[in-house]
């Protein structure tokens, strides 16, 4: 039995709270980017994920992530169903983990990751998706795609340091490049393809209706991300501090990278570009936050900022309607971060003479994540398409999905 470490517990409680705030932050970030007739629906996709996963996680989510291993793929959902056996030991004392943090605080921290990951996907399918179908998707996807991936990477499964690839090098995913960003990014791409384009995609402007809201959202995401990354040290120590500083320097560099790319391409740096660069940097440093130093973090951030700024143009080239660039930011940013660990990792990276092993194993886990997430999401997505259907009637899409799905409009129109 470990002794309670009050300081570590304080930081993990704080971190859990910070990460929970990220999802409303995302709701604002995404909501500001939609047209004013669909901002509420966009925000509701995030809030809905909070509702569904907030309940599911304590029932079977924790158990499927960290319960008794089944084939290296997922945890047994019945092992700690309803958190029985997670909270107290046989004497009714709180269980304490190896960092001196109560197990229940670990649950607090992890539920927030499951929520934000799933909510991220919604950006790809904005403005056109039936709310009921989304809510069903959330419940199934988090169960079949997220919990297993969390188990594989963090719960001692296939992609962890205990898995088969660890013989090449121990895979590094500090705070969720594969589990969170590649996973959500691929899911977004698959759903965007299955659900199809918004009416008017490629011809109508569909400009963001409220950019200060987008910037506020990006700010809350950055703030919350300190819990995400520095909290992933699982205690309040030097590693947490390093992750904090890396998160900031990478994010700052990514913002500059995105703005510079815009300036070169269009002559101006935009506020949407700054907000997007912030998120791209946060995404890219996520898996790497504990493995780099602040200077290599700047390099990683800058690369991610530039590449993501270029990647958001791909949807127009290839014609898929990834409405708010889940692919361009989360999939691309997640890949950049996950793979470049092999180059920049302070101990094992290529440029520090660590050879190719780390790079190879990073590529492998990224590929496994892509395939796993792609296949599972496709199955779920197609099943929902065949049964409930995904889309609101075109007429409702034009009139505004806020009205048709939620019987509301975001803003008062005529003063009275």
């Amino acid at each position, binding site marked *: 039995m470990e002794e309670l470490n009050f300081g570590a517990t304080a930081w993990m409680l704080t971190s859990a709270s910070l990460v929970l705030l990220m999802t409303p932050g995302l709701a604002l970030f995404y909501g500001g980017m939609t047209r004013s007739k669909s901002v509420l629906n966009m925000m509701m996709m995030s809030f809905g994920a909070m509702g569904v996963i907030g309940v599911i996680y304590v029932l079977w989510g924790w158990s499927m992530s960290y319960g008794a291993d089944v084939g290296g793929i997922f945890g047994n959902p019945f092992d700690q169903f309803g958190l029985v056996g997670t909270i107290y030991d046989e004497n009714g004392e709180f269980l304490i983990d190896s960092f001196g943090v109560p197990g229940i605080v670990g649950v607090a921290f992890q539920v927030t990751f499951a929520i934000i990951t799933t909510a991220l996907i919604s950006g790809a399918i904005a403005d056109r998706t039936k709310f009921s179908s989304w809510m069903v998707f959330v419940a199934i996807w988090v169960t079949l795609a997220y919990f297993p991936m969390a188990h594989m990477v963090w719960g001692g499964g296939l992609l962890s340091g205990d898995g088969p690839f660890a013989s090449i090098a121990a895979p590094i995913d500090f705070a969720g490049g594969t589990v969170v960003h590649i996973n959500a990014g691929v899911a977004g791409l698959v759903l965007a393809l299955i659900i199809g384009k918004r009416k008017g995609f490629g011809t109508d402007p569909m400009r963001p209706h409220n950019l200060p809201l987008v910037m506020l959202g990006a700010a809350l995401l950055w703030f919350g991300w300190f819990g995400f990354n520095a909290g992933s040290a699982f205690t309040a120590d030097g590693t947490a501090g390093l992750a904090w500083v890396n998160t900031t320097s990478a994010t700052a560099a990514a913002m500059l990278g995105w703005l510079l790319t815009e300036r070169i391409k269009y002559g101006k740096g935009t506020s949407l570009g700054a907000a997007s660069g912030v998120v791209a940097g946060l995404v890219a440093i996520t898996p790497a936050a504990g493995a780099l130093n602040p200077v290599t973090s700047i390099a990683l951030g800058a690369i991610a900022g530039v590449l993501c700024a270029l990647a958001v143009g791909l949807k127009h080239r290839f014609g898929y309607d990834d409405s708010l660039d889940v692919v361009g930011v989360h999939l691309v940013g997640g890949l950049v971060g996950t793979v470049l660990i092999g180059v920049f990792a302070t101990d094992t990276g290529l440029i520090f003479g660590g050879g190719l092993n780390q790079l190879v194993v990073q590529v492998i886990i990224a590929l496994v994540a892509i395939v796993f997430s792609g296949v599972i999401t496709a199955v779920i997505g197609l099943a929902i398409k065949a049964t409930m259907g995904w889309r609101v009637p075109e007429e409702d899409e034009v009139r505004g999905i806020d009205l048709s799905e939620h*019987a509301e409009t975001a803003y008062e129109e005529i003063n009275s």
Partner: protein
Amino acid sequence: MKLITAVIQPHKLDEVKSALEAAGVRGMTVSEASGYGRQKGHTEVYRGAEYTVDLVPKVRVEVLVEDGDATTLAGVVVSAAQSGKIGDGKVWVSPVEDVIRVRTGASGPDAL
């Protein structure tokens, strides 16, 4: 001269603009409006209070045209704005006695 005023569905604005441009019109003024008519409004729900909003969003387009062009151009607007569904809107033509271009002070057809 005449003023053509069109109250149309917001999502038809781009089409109307293009059609007018194609017909040689070089300027217009656009504003937001709300319409009340045969098109039913909708029901909104706020904390248990359900109520009917009978004003639906519309866009108003105003085009000053020469006398002889009024009928044709009104027709252009109507075709471009038409979807055949209730609520497509109205177009009306009213007389204008004088038009002045602010920049130059020129008035009459030259001001268009």
